[in-house]
């Protein structure tokens, strides 16, 4: 592999992969908290709509959704998305649906007495959520969120099928240029593994921080990351 292929394709490809991961993760987090909190709402209609969203987006394949957003949206609604944003939207919406289940589970796992204490102190529902429930639920969400983040990172490889020049796309081009399949695909796999490793480490730190924030010390934090 020559240096030119590295600087022209692979390094920019890695950068695109990182950008995709960050943007989709941001959107997914937003969706996860929005839908996840809506699933604990007292109104049945809100709960049903949020549940419907999760079932639809968890039910379909991220790749099919991506193709749908990219090829069908322009025809049906008359506005087109750049491949990169179609990808971010597809990944964010579907992994957000998985994340919503995590948020709901963690909120439901907070001891009921905590919510009742919030009611007794006549907090508004929003204050209860922000000051009592979320600070205790968030540390519990981080290990499953880490798993989802790794899945999301792996999902970003799908964008190469829409022609976005990410790491996988670069690998494809380099293979065409050099015919050295073993080398380039091994390098690509290692690149993804390193990114995943760094993300996992980062999430461990975040878990410790958020746990310390509600007074749980490091001893109990060891089990994070295991599926």
């Amino acid at each position, binding site marked *: 592999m020559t240096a030119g292929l590295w600087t022209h394709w692979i390094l920019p490809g890695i950068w695109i992969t990182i950008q995709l991961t960050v943007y989709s993760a941001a959107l997914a987090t937003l969706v996860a908290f929005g839908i996840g909190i809506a699933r604990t709402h007292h109104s049945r209609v809100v709960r049903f709509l949020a549940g419907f969203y999760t*079932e*639809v987006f*968890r*039910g*379909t*394949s*991220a*790749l*099919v*959704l991506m*193709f*749908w957003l990219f*090829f*069908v949206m322009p*025809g*049906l609604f*008359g506005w087109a998305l750049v491949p990169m944003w179609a990808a971010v939207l597809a990944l964010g919406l579907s992994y957000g649906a998985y994340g919503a289940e995590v948020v709901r589970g963690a909120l439901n796992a907070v001891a009921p007495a905590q919510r009742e204490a919030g009611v007794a102190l006549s907090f508004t529902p929003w204050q209860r959520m922000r000051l009592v429930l979320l600070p205790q639920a968030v540390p519990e969400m981080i290990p499953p969120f880490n798993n989802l983040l*790794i899945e999301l*990172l*792996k*999902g*970003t*490889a*799908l964008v*190469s*099928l829409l022609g976005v020049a990410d790491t*996988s796309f670069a*690998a*494809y081009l380099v*293979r065409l240029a050099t015919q050295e*399949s*073993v080398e380039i*695909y*091994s390098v*690509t*796999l290692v690149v*993804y*593994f390193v990114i*995943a*490793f760094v993300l996992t480490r980062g999430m461990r730190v975040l878990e410790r921080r958020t746990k310390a924030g509600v007074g749980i010390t490091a001893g109990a934090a060891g089990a994070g990351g295991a*599926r």
Partner: protein
Amino acid sequence: MNHWDWSAVTDFMPTFWDGLLVTLQVLVLGSLLSFTLGLVWAIGYRGPRWVRWPVNAVTEFIRNTPLLVQLFFFYFVLPEWGVQASALTTGTLAIGLHYSTYTAQVYRAGIDAVPAGQWEAATALSLPVPRTWFAVILPQAIRRIVPALGNYVISMLKDTPLLMAIGVLEMLQQARLASAQTFQYAEPLTVVGVAFILIAYPASLLMRALERRLVR
């Protein structure tokens, strides 16, 4: 082209069924491969250090890298190693291998949940190792394992469209070919998207019911 055209749906249906058949074929064979290979990994996790360490490293690596890149790896590299396999076979092998690293975790968790006293009892009765595994440990672990494996089968279903990247004629690839011929993108892709929901949603309901019954 801006309007929904039912005749495009009817035109697509024959090839859709062909695609569905291929998808299900990949799913069944891939699942069987991942169930067996995952069990091999899980037993490896409990082996001596020189087995455990490499098994851990390999499965962690496969689990943390994209299936799509692995598909390309096998698709391009296997012929170089002198293994001639069709895209369908390569794809099934790759997806089975990828998911075996998840099923291995499921087996591991299921096996770890069997109380230590069961292992000790098997030792006290001086049962041979294979009998300890197949007559004592696995039958008890299976209650936790089955629903979790089912959930991974559903995930695998949703990953089968990736095989279109190496030219396997599953549902999504059939939709792509159909729309390339007629320039009607909306109908085939929507049919495929809805098909995934129609298969995955009842399947996940079934798994949740199973989980409630089996996991105590």
